[in-house]
């Protein structure tokens, strides 16, 4: 009898389902999921009884088992409605629809949770980028209002922008484990293999600084010879591979090289920018890419991204990474890296038909102009290229910005990208005109993380490719690379690196990890506005009860952070343990003060930190303010600049504070401030800010302890966001080929 039961035979492909809309509401979800997935391979045993994975343990289960063994339940697997009366069939269909719509609502909620997390990550990331872009706008305004800054013939110029690194500077010995390999020029495949073997390990994966310098210097030298736009052709290879953002994810780069092979004349690669920042192995990614370029110069094409920029690196972690790995030589290495950045080409043109750039384009993008720029001027894209009094070509600067920072949008038109604060959003009409004007077929770009590693837009004329899997958190997204054949028809290979780590977890656990990572990022961002939040909350709580209405809580959150997030959905996470009527905002503030969040904040860098860390930017500000190029700034000159600074970075300092700062800066009391005093003042104010914070913390820790639900949530976040380092195993990936869209 049971032999004929269809449902127990080997049905389906037995493959584990890839990530898509999922559910985690059942308390037995992990068990259900695990068994559910393997169910498709349940077979009949030799005695005709179905083999299940676990023996029925509960009496209910075993009685059900008996039930369907005994009664003629097999009739159910005939076509469900056959043999029923019309009304009964109708009733059944109605019941089916009823159940289906209920189920779909349930699924929508899960989808919502996923989206919510994604939105948190994206909005926080872009809000931070906005801050950086503010710097660009600030400089713009500063220059506009101080045209004398552009005068030729200045004296005693202290700008270090145009000077390359000194060749005779000594390298210092680093302490700690160092890889024992030796490299020499010219770089060859054997060196690549050595490097990959070294970088793969979780320990002892540092090259000797002399080799790092060697690679950086040689790469900058070669890149300098290249035009602004690489000309790539599939004439010889008959195909080409394109990779998007890697962001320090060495494991993803190794997966790509493992699955797709090392570059060669028959296997060329284009890497579309954003090699560093955010991920922890940015230096290794950069060195490996540059080495691949040196070893296979006609098969590797490296485009600059908006993160190939020291101003971004100061904020997004790469500078810290280099400081951490080479504490005694980082200054030298970073200045060599700057050299590489300024000579990286700005994009590629494939077969004269396809443009590959990091961000996108605007309605004013002109490739001829871009081809003719002296790109070496732009050590940082966020800082104006003032060099020995050369006139600033603002239109030119804008051109570079647009191709590095823009994003496609669904609606028509081309408008400033308010989300990022720089570049534009370009619509399908902009794309059409751009392609026509430059006689191109389509554009490949990166810059935006996508759940599936890639996305088509604008009638398949704009393709986004993003190669960093697990970008926001483990399990947050797949990475992908593109392969184009000789006709430039694409297909994609999607993957997740370190797949086994994710597979071991149930869906619920994975969701939990992504959710916790999102909360952590959000909480760190909220900390920047902590005092403002507290003040506003208290405004709506005249009785000092510690509670306000949900609507008011949502209003304050959005008004202060301006992150555009669905606060109502986040309420029970950000104010844990509160009921459905009102919100205990004290819990929100307490959450921000927990250790896990404070540590995460210390780990990151604020705008002001980044500004200070980026000495070159401070110098530039100084030089611009110093309108008459006297080498000193007067209070007058400074006041003009303050107005602009305050307009661009509200909440950082007020005008009075800034003026006070200027007076403080005048350390020798002669009514003027020179560069050293200027830099020192920033360092001091930074110091005093940190001292203030510590004082504040000390005071708070003597007050009452946070509620239990807050502590519990903080523990969960801490547990779920713990990262354990492993050796990289590129074979441990879950790769899938995805065909082209018609």
């Amino acid at each position, binding site marked *: 009898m049971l032999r004929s*039961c*269809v*449902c*127990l035979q080997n049905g389906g492909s037995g493959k584990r*389902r890839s990530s*898509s809309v999922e*559910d985690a*509401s*059942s308390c*037995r979800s992990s*068990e*259900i*999921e695990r068994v*559910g997935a393997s*169910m498709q391979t349940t077979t009949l045993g030799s005695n005709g009884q*179905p083999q299940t994975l*676990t023996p029925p343990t*509960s009496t209910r*289960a075993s009685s*059900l*088992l008996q039930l369907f063994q005994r*009664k003629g339940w097999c009739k*159910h*697997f005939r*076509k*469900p409605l056959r043999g029923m009366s019309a009304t009964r069939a109708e009733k*059944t269909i*109605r*019941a*089916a*629809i*009823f*159940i*289906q719509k*209920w*189920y779909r*609502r*349930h*699924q*929508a*909620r899960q989808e*919502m949770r996923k*989206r*919510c997390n994604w*939105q948190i990550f994206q909005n926080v990331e872009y809000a931070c980028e906005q801050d950086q872009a503010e710097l660009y706008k600030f400089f713009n305004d500063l220059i506009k209002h101080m045209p004398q800054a552009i005068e030729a013939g200045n004296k005693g110029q202290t700008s270090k922008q145009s000077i390359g690194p000194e060749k005779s500077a000594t390298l210092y010995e680093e302490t700690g484990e160092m890889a024992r390999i030796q490299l020499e020029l010219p770089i060859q495949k054997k060196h690549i293999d050595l490097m990959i073997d070294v970088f793969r390990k979780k320990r002892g994966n540092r090259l000797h600084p002399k080799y790092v310098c060697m690679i950086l210097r040689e790469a900058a030298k070669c890149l300098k010879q290249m035009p602004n736009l690489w000309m790539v052709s599939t004439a010889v290879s008959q195909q080409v591979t394109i990779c998007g953002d890697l962001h320090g994810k060495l494991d993803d780069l190794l997966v790509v090289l493992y699955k797709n092979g090392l570059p060669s004349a028959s296997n060329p690669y284009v890497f579309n920018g954003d090699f560093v920042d955010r991920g922890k192995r940015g230096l290794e990614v950069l060195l490996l890419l540059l080495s691949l370029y040196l070893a296979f110069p006609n098969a590797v094409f490296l485009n600059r991204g908006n993160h190939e920029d020291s101003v971004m690196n100061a904020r997004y972690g790469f500078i810290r990474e280099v400081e951490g790995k080479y504490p005694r030589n980082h200054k030298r290495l970073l200045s060599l890296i700057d050299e590489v950045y300024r000579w990286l080409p700005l994009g590629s043109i494939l077969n004269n038909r396809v443009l590959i750039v990091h961000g996108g384009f605007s309605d004013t993008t002109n490739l001829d102009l871009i081809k003719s720029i002296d790109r070496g001027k732009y050590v940082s894209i966020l800082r104006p290229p003032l060099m020995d009094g050369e006139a600033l070509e603002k239109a030119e600067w804008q051109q570079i910005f647009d191709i590095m920072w823009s*994003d496609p*949008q*669904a*609606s*028509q038109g081309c408008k400033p990208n*308010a*989300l990022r604060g720089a570049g534009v959003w370009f619509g399908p009409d902009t794309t059409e005109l751009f392609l026509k004007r430059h006689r191109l077929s389509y554009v490949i770009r990166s810059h935006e993380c996508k759940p599936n590693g890639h996305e088509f837009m604008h009638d398949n004329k704009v393709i986004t490719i993003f190669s960093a899997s697990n970008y926001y958190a483990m399990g947050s997204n797949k990475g992908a690379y593109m392969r184009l054949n000789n006709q430039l028809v694409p297909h994609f290979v999607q993957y997740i690196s370190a797949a086994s780590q994710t597979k071991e977890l149930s*869906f619920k656990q994975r969701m939990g990890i992504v959710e916790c990572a999102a909360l952590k990022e959000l909480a760190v961002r909220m900390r920047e506005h902590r005092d403002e939040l507290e003040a506003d909350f208290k405004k709506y709580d005249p009785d000092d009860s510690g509670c306000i209405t949900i*609507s008011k809580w*949502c209003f304050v959150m959005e008004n202060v952070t301006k992150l*555009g997030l*669905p*606060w*109502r*959905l986040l309420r029970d996470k950000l104010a844990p343990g509160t009921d459905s009527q009102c919100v205990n905002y004290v819990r929100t503030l307490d959450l921000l003060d927990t250790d896990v969040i404070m540590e995460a904040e210390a780990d990151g860098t604020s705008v002001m930190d980044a500004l200070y860390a980026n000495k070159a930017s401070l110098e530039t500000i100084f030089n611009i303010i110093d309108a008459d190029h006297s080498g000193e700034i007067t209070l007058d000159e400074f006041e003009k600049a303050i107005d602009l600074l305050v307009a661009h970075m509200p909440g950082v300092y007020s005008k009075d504070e800034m003026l006070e700062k200027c007076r403080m800066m005048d350390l020798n009391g002669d009514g003027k401030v020179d560069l050293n005093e200027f830099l020192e003042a920033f360092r001091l104010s930074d110091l005093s800010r940190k001292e203030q914070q510590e004082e504040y913390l000390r005071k708070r820790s003597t007050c009452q302890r946070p509620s239990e639900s807050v502590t519990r949530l903080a523990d969960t976040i801490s547990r779920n966001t713990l990262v354990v380092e492993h050796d990289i195993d590129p074979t441990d990936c879950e790769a899938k080929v995805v065909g082209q869209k018609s």
Partner: protein
Amino acid sequence: MEIAIPLANELEVRISEAFCIFDIHGDKYIDTRNVGNVLRFLGCVPTEKEVNQVIAATESAENPGETHLQKFMAHLSPLLMDRKMEPASAEQILAAFEVLDPENKRFLTKEYFGKLMKEEGEQFNDDEMKAMWRVAIDPITENVPYVFYINQLKHKTTIYDVAEVLKEELASNDKEKKKERNPMP
């Protein structure tokens, strides 16, 4: 985010919050394919047919394939006040399952339930099927114990209460206006 749409009442605030999760660029447009998700997240339980009706009624003429918040709110608010697409009680879902289980065994077989969901009514596609099994199947018996399953599907909905409050407010405002226009002698 950048383009601020004025929200007249609590109902619009709620609708806007759910809507904006899918608004990637902050221009208050979402892909029409997400309209169903928005409705369901708000707490409505529409059939696919009802979702398509809402899509058709709110799709942007200037940007096909996109839906704008304003039009969406204007169309949806009256529907919510009329209690359309409202979730039924747990008893009603139970009754639906009982229609499928005439022998009252309190479970359905995977085979039968799967076929029904896939072939009848507003059919599930492969992805929906796979995802559904995660919730519906008892791994031990490999059946669908629907009473347990129903408990997984229940979620509290407050949007209709919010709509009700708004409806009453508007009704009393109307009454006030009428009184003003026609004062009692």
